[in-house]
C-alpha cells in the first residue's frame, strides 16, 4: 500500500468524522460512482426484466437483493481512486470481474442481510478474509458501531427519496388535470391490482434512482469508516509522517545528513520501528513493507543513544482538575464524547429475527422466481417466437369475456358459436364470434380500450386483419348490431355462413368469464 499517494489526509478520526470524509469522497467522485452503479445494475436489471416484467415487485426485490454486487464495484473503484488510480468504468469492471466474483457470492447470499455491510464489505472484499480470520478482523474493525447507524441512516434516506420525490411531484401537479390523477397514480402501486398499475413502474423507477443516488455515499462512508479504523489501529498517519521524513532523509546531501543525524536519528528510528510494526499489520492489504535500512546492532546502539537523550527518561509532575461527579451521582459517568451506540441486545435480537425472516422470505421468493421462470418459458412464444397455434394450448391465459351460459372451458370459437346458434341464441353466437375475433386481434397487438365501439374496433382491425378476415368481421358486426340494437331478426343461414367462414380463420380456444371486454 502506497500511503504517500492517498488522496485524503490521514489522521485519527472519530467515526462520525470518518463518515463525513466518506460523504466528501462521494461528492467528489459522485458522477463516476453513480455511472458505475448504473453500468453494473442496468444489464442485471434488463436481464431480469425479461423474466419478471409481469412481477414488478419481484423485480425490484431482486435488484434490491443484488445491491452488494453493485456496491462492490463502487468499493473497488473507490479503493483505487483514493490512491490516485482513477480507472475507467470498463477497466474497473474488467479488474473487478477478475478479482471479485468469488468473494461476492457470500455477500449476496448468506451475508446479504447485515447492519454492518458497509464496513464488512471492505474488510471482506479488499482483504479477502475468510472464516475466523474475517470474524476477528471485523470484531477489531467495528469499533464504535457506527456502521449500523450508517446503514440505518442510508436506508431512511433511500425511503425519503423514494416517497418524497413522487409526493413532491403529486403536490406540484394540479389535482384536477384531466385524465391524470397523480394521487391515484401514487397510491395504486399499493393497491390490490398493483401489479398491473402504471404507477408501479414509476414508483420502481424512483426507487432505483434513490438506490443509485444513495449507494455512492453509503459505500464511500463505509470505506472511510474502514480507513479511519485502520488509521487508528495501525497508526497510518504516523507511518506516513515517518515515511516522508525518511524519504527526505535519504534525499538530503551526505554532510548535512550526518550533521543532522544527532537530532533526526531518534525520529528515524521511531519511524522504522513503527513502520515495521505497522507493516506487520498491513501486509495482508498491500503485500509489501518498507525496507529497513538499519542493521539490528546499529539500531540497538541508536536506540540506546536515543533513550539516553534528554527527551526520554525525564519526569515531570503536573496537577490537573479531574471531574469526579457530584455528591448525588454514583457509579461510572457516561462518556459524552463517545458516539451513541445502538442498544446491542435488542438490536441484535431484531437483526437476528429480521435475518431469519428475510432468509425465509428469500427462499419463498426464489420459489416464486422459479415458478415465474417456468411461466416465462411458457410465454416465450408470445414474446416473439411466433403466435400460439391455439387448439393445442388450452390454458387459462387468453381470457374471453363473454356472458353466455356455462359451457366447456376450452372450445374452438366456431364450435361454440354453432352450439349457441343451435340452442337458439343467435345474439350470443354473434357476440361470441365478434368478441373472440377482437380478442385475438387484441392479443396480436391491436390497441383497443374498453371504450372502443364496434366501428372503432373495426377500423382498428383493418390495420391488422387480412381483407377477407376484415370483411367477415364487418359482416359479424353488422348482424350483431341489427340483433342487439335494432332487435331485428337475423336469418339463421347468414349466421351459419359466418360460422362456416370462421372455421377458415386462425382459431384460438375460448375461455368464458364475466366482466367488461376490451
Amino acid at each position, binding site marked *: 500500500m502506497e500511503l504517500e499517494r492517498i488522496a485524503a489526509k490521514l489522521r485519527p478520526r472519530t467515526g462520525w468524522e470518518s463518515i463525513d470524509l466518506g460523504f466528501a469522497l462521494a461528492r467528489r467522485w459522485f458522477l463516476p460512482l453513480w455511472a458505475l452503479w448504473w453500468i453494473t445494475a442496468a444489464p442485471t436489471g434488463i436481464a431480469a426484466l425479461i423474466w419478471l416484467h409481469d412481477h414488478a415487485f419481484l423485480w425490484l426485490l431482486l435488484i434490491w437483493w443484488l445491491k452488494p454486487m453493485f456496491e462492490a464495484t463502487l468499493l473497488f473503484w473507490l479503493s483505487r481512486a483514493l490512491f490516485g488510480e482513477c480507472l475507467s468504468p470498463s477497466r474497473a469492471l474488467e479488474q473487478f470481474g477478475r478479482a471479485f466474483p468469488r468473494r461476492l457470492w457470500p455477500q449476496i447470499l448468506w451475508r446479504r442481510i447485515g447492519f454492518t455491510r458497509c464496513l464488512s464489505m471492505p474488510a471482506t472484499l479488499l482483504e479477502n478474509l475468510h472464516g475466523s480470520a474475517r470474524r476477528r478482523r471485523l470484531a477489531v474493525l467495528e469499533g464504535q458501531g457506527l456502521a449500523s447507524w450508517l446503514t440505518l441512516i442510508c436506508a431512511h434516506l433511500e425511503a425519503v427519496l423514494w416517497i418524497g420525490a413522487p409526493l413532491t411531484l403529486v403536490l406540484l401537479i394540479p389535482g384536477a388535470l384531466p385524465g391524470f390523477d397523480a394521487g391515484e397514480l401514487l397510491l395504486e402501486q399499493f393497491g390490490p391490482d398493483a401489479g398491473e398499475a402504471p404507477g408501479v413502474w414509476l414508483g420502481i423507477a424512483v426507487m432505483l434512482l434513490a438506490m443509485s443516488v444513495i449507494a455512492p455515499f453509503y459505500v464511500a462512508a463505509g470505506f472511510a469508516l474502514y480507513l479511519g479504523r485502520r488509521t487508528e489501529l495501525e497508526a497510518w498517519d504516523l507511518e506516513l509522517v515517518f515515511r516522508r521524513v525518511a524519504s527526505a532523509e535519504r534525499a538530503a546531501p551526505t554532510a548535512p545528513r550526518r550533521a543532522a543525524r544527532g537530532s533526526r536519528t531518534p525520529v528515524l528510528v521511531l519511524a522504522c520501528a513503527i513502520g515495521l510494526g505497522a507493516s506487520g499489520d498491513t501486509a495482508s492489504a498491500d503485500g509489501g513493507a518498507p525496507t529497513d535500512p538499519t542493521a539490528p546492532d546499529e539500531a540497538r546502539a541508536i536506540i540506546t543513544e536515543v533513550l539516553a537523550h534528554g527527551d526520554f527518561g525525564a519526569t515531570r509532575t503536573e496537577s490537573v482538575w479531574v471531574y469526579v461527579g457530584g455528591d448525588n451521582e454514583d457509579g461510572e459517568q457516561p462518556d459524552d464524547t463517545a458516539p451513541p451506540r445502538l442498544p446491542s441486545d435488542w438490536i441484535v435480537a431484531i437483526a437476528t429475527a429480521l435475518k431469519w425472516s428475510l432468509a425465509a422470505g428469500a427462499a419463498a421468493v426464489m420459489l416464486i422466481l422459479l415458478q415465474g421462470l417456468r411461466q416465462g418459458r411458457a410465454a416465450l412464444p408470445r414474446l416473439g417466437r411466433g403466435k400460439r397455434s391455439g387448439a393445442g394450448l388450452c390454458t387459462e391465459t387468453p381470457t374471453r369475456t363473454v356472458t353466455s351460459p356455462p359451457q366447456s372451458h376450452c372450445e374452438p370459437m366456431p364450435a361454440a358459436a354453432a352450439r349457441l346458434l343451435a340452442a337458439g341464441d343467435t345474439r350470443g353466437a354473434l357476440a361470441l364470434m365478434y368478441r373472440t375475433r377482437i380478442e385475438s386481434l387484441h392479443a396480436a397487438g391491436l390497441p383497443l380500450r374498453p371504450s372502443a365501439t364496434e366501428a372503432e374496433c373495426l377500423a382498428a382491425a383493418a390495420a391488422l386483419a387480412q381483407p377477407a378476415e376484415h370483411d367477415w368481421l364487418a359482416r359479424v358486426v353488422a348482424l350483431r*348490431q341489427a340483433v342487439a340494437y*335494432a332487435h331485428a331478426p337475423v336469418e339463421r343461414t347468414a349466421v351459419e355462413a359466418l360460422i362456416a367462414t370462421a372455421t377458415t380463420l386462425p382459431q384460438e380456444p375460448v375461455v368464458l368469464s364475466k366482466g367488461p371486454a376490451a
Partner: protein
Amino acid sequence: MTSPPPPSPDIIEAAAARLQALERQIAGAVLGQGQVIRELIAAAAAAGHVLLEGLPGVGKTLLVRAMAKAVGGHYARIQFTPDLMPGDVTGHAVFDLRSEQFHIRRGPIFCNILLGDEINRAPAKTQSAMLEAMQEQQVTIEGEALALEPPFLVLATQNPIEHEGTYPLPRAQLDRFLIKSVMGYPDGAEESAIVRQITAGAVGDRLDLSRVQPIMGPDDLLAIQTAAAALTVDDSVLDYAVRLVRATRDWPGIEHGAGPRAGIALIRAARGHALLAGNGYVIPDDVKRVAAAVLRHRIKPTADVEIEGFDPDQLLAGLLADVPAPRV
C-alpha cells in the same frame, strides 16, 4: 307511455337520403366543416337547437343560411346587439289608430329557422326571451300564448373571443341548445378552395348561396324529425349515454357536470345521427360521435384546468376514452 313503432325501412331510407342530400348541399357551400355540418343536420333531424361557436370569418352565418335555403320554409335572422329588446325578438302589441285596437305584431322568432347572430351580445333579458320559444315552441305576447309553427330551429352563433361588451349565456339557456358545434379554421387545402370558390367572379363579399338548392320543405323536415324520434334505442345504448353523462359529474377537471337533460339530448342527437347514417336504430357509435357536441356546453371545467389551457373538448375526449362502450 308506449314507444312509437319504429319507422319502416322505406321511411328510414327516404329520410336518410334527404338528410344526406342536405349534407351534400351544405357541404357544397361551406367547405372544410364536415363535422359541424353533420352535427347540424343531426340536430335538425332531432329537432334540436344549435349553438355555433367560431372565430369571425369561419362561415357560421353562411352555414346557417345554406341550411335555411336547402330546407326551405320561413327563415329569419336577428342580429343580437346590446340594445336589442325582448320585444324585438318575440314581437309586441301595437295600437291601430284606425281600428282603435291592439294588434299583435309578431317578431322574427315566428319562423322555421331562426339565425340568432352573435347571441351573446344581447343582454340577459333579451336572451331569456328566447327561452320560452326554444323550450316550449311558443311565445307569450300580452298574455296570449302563440304557438310557433313547426319545425322550429334556432341556430345561434357566438364568438369565443372579444368578450368585452358581451353577456355570456347562462347555463339554463345553454342547456336549451341540443348541441354546441365549434367551427375551427379549415386546413390549408380547404382554405385555398374556399378563397378560390368565393372570389371566382364575385362582386363584393356577398355570401354566395347559388350552389345551394332547396331540396325539401318544412313538412319534409317535420317527417324526418318524426322518423328520428321513433328510432329504436336499445337499453344498453341508453345506459351508455347515461353513463357518459354521469361520468361528467365526478370527472377530474370538471367542476359541474351535465344534468339529466344532457342524457335526453344525447339520445335525441344520437337518433338524428343514426338516421343520417341510414340506420333504423341507434348504436353506441352514434352516441359517441355526438357526445362532445352535446356535452361540451353542459360542463364547467375547474379553474385550474382552464388556467392550464384545457378546454371542455379535451376533458370529454378523456372521458369518452375511459367510459366502457356497451358489450352485448
